């Protein structure tokens, strides 16, 4: 059979063509701030092993305006990341069934979100007042 001439459309800028893909890119991109935040925490742990002075210096560095700005930004994007994480959780969850019927997707998402909020409140109360 003769080879048919076809036209292949370019993929350039694909994620800007659909709001669904834009949200996907923000979801994935937000994990970059999450990674930076984790590195800062790890640095803190490392400074702790170097003694009290190093630990206090790290804590002081955290109070700088740039650090505060970053942490507010990180909190915002990580909250969004957590929200989207539960939105896609029904796709990554095993086949969950109750009495033979699949568990509704919104139940998995809502359960996860409530759990996250609940755990955050508990941790905040422990860290703040205990």
């Amino acid at each position: 059979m003769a080879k048919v001439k076809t036209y292949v459309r370019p993929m350039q800028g694909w994620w800007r063509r659909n709001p669904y893909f834009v949200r996907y890119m923000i979801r994935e991109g937000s994990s970059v701030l999450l990674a930076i935040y984790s590195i800062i925490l790890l640095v803190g742990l490392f400074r702790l092993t170097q003694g009290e002075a190093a630990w206090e210096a790290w804590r002081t560095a955290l109070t700088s305006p740039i650090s505060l700005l970053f942490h507010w930004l990180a909190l915002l994007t990580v909250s969004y990341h957590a929200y989207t994480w539960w939105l896609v959780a029904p796709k990554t969850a095993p086949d969950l069934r109750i009495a033979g019927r699949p568990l509704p997707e919104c139940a998995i998402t809502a359960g996860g979100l409530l759990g996250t909020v609940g755990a955050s409140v508990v941790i905040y109360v422990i860290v703040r007042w205990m």
Partner: protein
Amino acid sequence: MADTRTIEIEVLRYNPEKDTEPHFQTFKVPFTHDTSVLQGLQYIKDHLDGSLTFRWSCRMAICGSCGKMVNGRPELSCHTFLRDYYPGKVRIEPLNHFPIVRDLVIDQTDFFNNKLPSVKPYVVSKESKPLSAGTFLQTPKQFHSYYQYSQCINCLLCYAACPQYGLKPGFTGPAALALMHRYNADSRDRGWEERAEILNAEDGVWGCTLVGYCSEVCPKHVDPAHAINQNKVNSTMDYFGVRKLLMPKGGA
């Protein structure tokens, strides 16, 4: 008819014998409340330009032939109505990520010749038994564990929704991987090992980054994203050799 209105339909045209790249052509098409996008295209072909080329067959969302991009979203054109776009325009393009053969017709060879056969989309039995021994029985529970995934009509909307397939055409893709799961999840099937190489590959389930749009556009609610991501767990268990211990029968 009294309720006839007119809508503008922009269609992507490509004639491989003349054009170096596709271009849009606009048609004014009369429609009523129950005119589908497919019927709009048929009106253009019958009354305005007989050279317009597109695939269709059943007109009732079961054959999977008439998939198009409708205003940027993969849709079965028989299952989508012009009234929902009026008074705006409707922009119709061939399904994304596939090579265009002519106008709205895409080259489906990659799916039907490569991806689909690669997942062995049929029951691989442990042993064949004579017809006289009767059918393989299944409980309703066993049936429901794969029924949803057996609803795929190979319309390829999910491939048009998957940017990973567009970026890496080697990716086995949503429908083929969902069908792989359909057979792996079937209690009569023993083909897991035979399909494992495709499933575990970089272009298998791991090629998916959970964009999730495939499940969003699937007209049959197959939920390919769920099928694929469940199997990332199976693939991991297979890698560490624990899958066989947990599932000695070779089920999914």
